[in-house]
């Protein structure tokens, strides 16, 4: 059976009708007991399982997914990967992720199509340019790449930009992070799943966690739609549903869930070769390898768990898009949808132990969870393996809400998560 992916194995399998490929992951029955249970088979959960095996040698691990792998926000986002953050804590976190993404296809032996075509944040005024300079300097001092583009450089970089004299939002320049880009979201989930499975992790789909099993004030397992499963440590990485899970464990989380919409257009020949973000309009867009424009915007106005789109937000997002790139107004949208994102008071994630011993959370990524998958998994694996924080994850513990040491990027730099 062909396990390793390569041009050669593809060629060979092509000649014999691709009969030799085995399953990308098994569909095992859950065991009664594991060293670690990871709840949530999205990117973060699967990456956590992978790094538990790879970095810590812990392979007696189950990933419990109530639906299908990558079916939550991992499979619903706009696939942007970047680390253009202001505070050192954030850059350390997201740049770890970016670096892991840079080697991920080889690491997982699965092409996640990380395309480093740059992430470009537009500036529409002089004050925004000043803030952009502050951000670029911060990024570079914190050890990641950033460039400040002026209007001329930007026009050459993105010919389709609206530079008409009557444009409502004039183009002054941009912050470019050249190493940023997009990845193939499903491939990230599948790649991690396949690699984790190969290392011995049990990935169990259609297995919903119904409750937590506690003994002596400690969480020792979960009861699921497929029976009780026990473990020494239990980590939850369930994004927009974190509050629901936390409630079952009797712990509170400072999270509000919102729908976040995304859109994809019909496939076009190449028209945009970067990820373009306008913090003012809140709209961002990139072009997928298939040619579709992948478009996103701000949160819905109304907290919700309804995975549905909403016309007013659609208007806001698309009006922002056509203001930036008016040639696209005649392009058609093929579909739009929404994910449920978990938003904390400072829009930064929560990583670490919960009030219930033995239960850990990886949540609060809000609108930016996809880009953080490798780091989220890497750090959460560290926490689950050692019971202690990694230096990079420590500032993101839930205790920051008591000390007040929030990491509020939006307030710092106007860069939305």
């Amino acid at each position: 059976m062909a396990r390793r992916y390569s041009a050669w194995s593809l060629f060979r399998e092509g000649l014999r009708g691709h009969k030799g490929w085995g399953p990308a992951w098994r569909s095992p029955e859950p065991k009664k007991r594991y060293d670690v249970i990871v709840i949530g088979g999205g990117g973060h959960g699967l990456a956590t399982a992978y790094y538990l095996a790879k970095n810590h040698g812990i392979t007696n691990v189950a990933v419990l997914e109530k639906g299908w792998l990558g079916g939550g926000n991992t499979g619903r986002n706009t696939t942007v990967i970047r680390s253009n953050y202001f505070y050192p804590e954030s850059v350390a976190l997201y740049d770890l992720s970016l670096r892991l993404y840079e080697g991920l296809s080889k690491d997982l032996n699965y092409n996640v199509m990380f395309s480093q075509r740059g992430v470009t944040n537009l500036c529409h005024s002089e004050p925004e340019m000043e803030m952009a300079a502050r951000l670029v300097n911060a990024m570079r001092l914190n050890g990641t790449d950033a460039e400040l583009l002026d209007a001329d450089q930007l026009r050459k970089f993105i010919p389709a930009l609206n530079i008409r004299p009557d444009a409502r939002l004039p183009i002054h320049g941009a912050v470019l992070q050249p190493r940023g880009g997009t990845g193939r979201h499903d491939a990230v989930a599948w790649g991690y799943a396949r690699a984790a499975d190969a290392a011995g992790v049990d990935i169990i789909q259609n297995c919903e966690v119904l409750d937590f099993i506690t003994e002596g004030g400690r969480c020792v397992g979960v009861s699921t739609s497929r029976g009780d499963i026990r473990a020494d440590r239990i980590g939850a990485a369930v994004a927009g549903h974190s509050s629901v899970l936390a409630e079952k464990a009797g712990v509170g989380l400072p999270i509000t869930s919102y729908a976040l919409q995304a859109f994809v257009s019909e496939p076009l020949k190449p028209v945009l070769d970067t990820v373009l973000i306008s913090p003012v309009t809140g709209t961002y867009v990139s072009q997928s390898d298939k040619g579709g424009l992948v478009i996103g915007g701000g949160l819905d106005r109304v907290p919700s768990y309804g995975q549905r789109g909403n016309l007013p937000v659609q208007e806001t997002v698309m009006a922002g898009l056509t203001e930036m790139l008016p040639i696209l107004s005649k392009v058609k949208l093929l579909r739009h949808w929404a994910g449920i994102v978990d938003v904390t008071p400072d829009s930064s994630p929560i990583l670490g132990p919960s009030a219930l011993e033995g239960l850990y959370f990886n949540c609060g990524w809000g609108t930016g969870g996809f880009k953080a998958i490798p780091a989220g998994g890497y750090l959460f694996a560290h926490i689950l393996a050692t019971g202690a924080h990694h230096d990079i994850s420590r500032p993101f513990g839930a205790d920051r809400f008591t000390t007040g040491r929030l990491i509020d990027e939006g307030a710092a730099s106007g860069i939305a998560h």
Partner: protein
Amino acid sequence: MTSHRITQGGLIDRSRPLRFSFDGKTYQGYEGDTLVSALLANGVRIMGRSFKYHRPRGPWGAWVDDPNAVFNVTLGGVEFPNCPGATTMLRDGMVTRSVNAFPSASFDLKGGLDLLHRWLGAGFYYKTFIWPDWHLFEPMIRRMAGLGAVSAEVIEGYASDQMHDRCEVLIVGGGAAGLAAARAAAESGRDVVLVEDHDQAGGRLYQLDSVEGQTPQDWVADQLAAIEAAGGRVMTRTTAFGVFDHRMVGLAQQGPFGYAPRLWRMRADRIVLASGAIDRPVTFANNDRPGVMSLDGACEWLARYGVLAGRNIAVLSNNSFAAPAARMLAEAGAEVTEIDPTTGPIRALGSKRLKGIEVAGKRHPADTILVSGGMTPLVHLWRHAGGKLDWDERTQAFLPGAAPEGMAAIGAANGTFDLDQALTEARAVARDEPRPDRAGDYRVKPLWPEPGSKGRQWIDFQHDVTLKDVELAARENYVSVEHLKRYTTLGMAQDQGKTSNMAGLAAMAAIQGRPIPEVGTTTFRPPFVPQPIALYSGPHAGQLYHPLKRLALEPLHRAADAALGEYGGWLRPGWYGSGDPAGHVRAEVIKARETAGILDASPLGKVEVMGPDAESFVNFIYYNTIKTLKPGHIRYGFMLTERGNVMDDGVIARLGPNRFVISCSSSHTDHVRAHLEAWRQDGNDPDRIFIHDLTQQWSTLTVTGPKARDIVAALDMPLDLSADAFPHMTLRETTLNGTPVRVARVSFTGDLSFEISIRSSRAADLWQALCAAGESVGAGPIGIEALSVLRAEKGFIIIGKDTEGETMPHDLGFGIPRQKKQAAFVGDRSLHMEVANRDDRRQLVGFRVDPGAPPLPTGAHLIGDGDTPRSEGYVTSSYDSPTLGHPIALGLLERGADRIGERVAVWHLGQRSSATVCAPCFFDPEGERLNA
């Protein structure tokens, strides 16, 4: 020519020929044709190429179910990408090109890719391009991918109008069921809207000889007339593209080609889905060949457009609709052979040109294969609204099950495929009567893809997903229907799976030996058919996109040669004069310091708080103690968030015992007002506090500079302007030529200033009087840019520029209320959290540079002197001060207040320089000029 126009019949207007071109060749069609029907009428079969293998593609369906015939269409010099040929109406002069094909659809240089198909199966790209690096391969793959190119022109006026409306009953679909339901509902007194996406209502009725004893045309016309007579509305060329919360249905109403559709947000008490059904493809070897088409599509081409799909037709169908369809085609002149597809393996013969069909080893010559694998109801909107689907064995289809509130499905959309029954059902539903059960004459034999069978069998025509790809996905355990879709891209083409999803999930079911309903469907997502981005973006572009607030005095500023710009949501004078902005700003700063500047400060918030509890309320809202403020006096203060961070700064004046005026930042007024209202109603007695935002009632002009008093004196108001009678931080109410004015002695420049507020309709008089008085002493108007410099010289901050989201008042040198204020105030407890007590907080400081050095760049960081530079803060405001003759800067710096006099390293885009930390005030630190 295989497909051709017949001499009569159809809804087209043969008296109005239209000329158009396709891939460089000129053709003729008629008014009423679609692009596809016109090309078929000219014998053109190959209209495009598939996405991956560049296989030739002819049209499959005659309606929204066609994934193949996609064109870039140019009309009137404007090119529109990826127009669906089956639903785009032909216009005279259209220039159409196939997409993803070069030089033409019939001869495509990339057609050779098909030879590599065995290596380009599902997900091949996940398994390779890993070494040496994806970036090496990606550009080539990106160029290969994509359908049409989007042209660079911006189409003037291509914007969708928006309309909000509501109705009691919205009927989606103007076929037999929809028309009958609309008529019945309208005639029973309901407010009815019927939407139909074709030019002409009637659905498939034109395929019939008669309907309830009338010709289809007459019957349709009768229904439409009756609906309108009963007050109902009929909207043709209108597509219901999505159902949103609270029964809001998005409707896209097409205009002429080249115009953006109008968006209707239609709120319906009740939604009746009569969207019909489409024919399913049959999965067999080479079923993607041009000339293999939907049987129902062919009947539509004949009935609506007078186009006969072929001359020698094989009809391949598993259901009872085949016989009447075959009869209809035969009557139109075709030679028709009916073939049962359930008898054995099937294979299409021929390549670009179809030669025949082989079933169970038996060959039938044919130039056209018309296929019907059973009907699939169009239940998209049902699912948008959260309706359930049930698998129905009898019809071999997913049919509407448990209904979303306020929604019903009728006719073919509900699996009621027989006309008489559909009409009965439609009328019953419209009248709220019990509906008959679905049983009818429609018969269909199960016919699904057979795993393991030979040949390349297409599931998704446009995206080149074959049965083998589904088998591969299953082998690799991508068995969830969503994994199947994502791994193979099945269902992600222009038709969003309308033609492919059923076959795909049935194939997966067969491979796994599971029943179809257990595999389930993928999610149905809006829009029902692709819609232009303009439909969503709305009509308000340019000035009307995020419109700015406009000053009452804008005409006078323009007359004074003001350069206007956006400042905090207002269009305001940045400076006065044309050319050389920096020179003008510099001159204005010097003018303000030497004589006086006159500034339009009208956007400054003027929010009045009144009532018996006003005093305690503002004392609670402000960080500073306000209750000790005496009438006629003014205090500078901060509003905090409950997290203790500075939200806004400004002055508050007390006009009387129960009346305060809050002067908040121009751009924060709306936010501050909402903040006040929220606290007023939550935790206070709203009957004892009232908040009036009077910002726009008053215009405010500021005169600032050593000559300010002389200028204001020239207004001749009954007011003693002397410093003793009218000191700094006080306010007087007086009159100017009989009009009430408020004069406040507050300063944002550090110089003697008078802020004069007058009702906006009289502001022009005040402006002119001040300018006239100013002219005699060499004073004149100044803009915001000069003000920014003036206030920075004095060290006055701008919230959001010189502060960040974490800034607390004690970081800005205002620590006393934090220590001393006894009463509760917003944010109080947060000022004593651990974070607030940290000794490395960033604090407001000033910076000086060495003589002759340039100004520090705003946004530059201050770095420690360790080996790896670490940011300790940043420059927030920086100017070359015209007043002082050297650069000045403000910034936030860790432990800044303790570091006055220290040299710090400055870092900007890799360049280092240095500066000296100083107190954040460069001008008149003793305040003599302020208090003058």
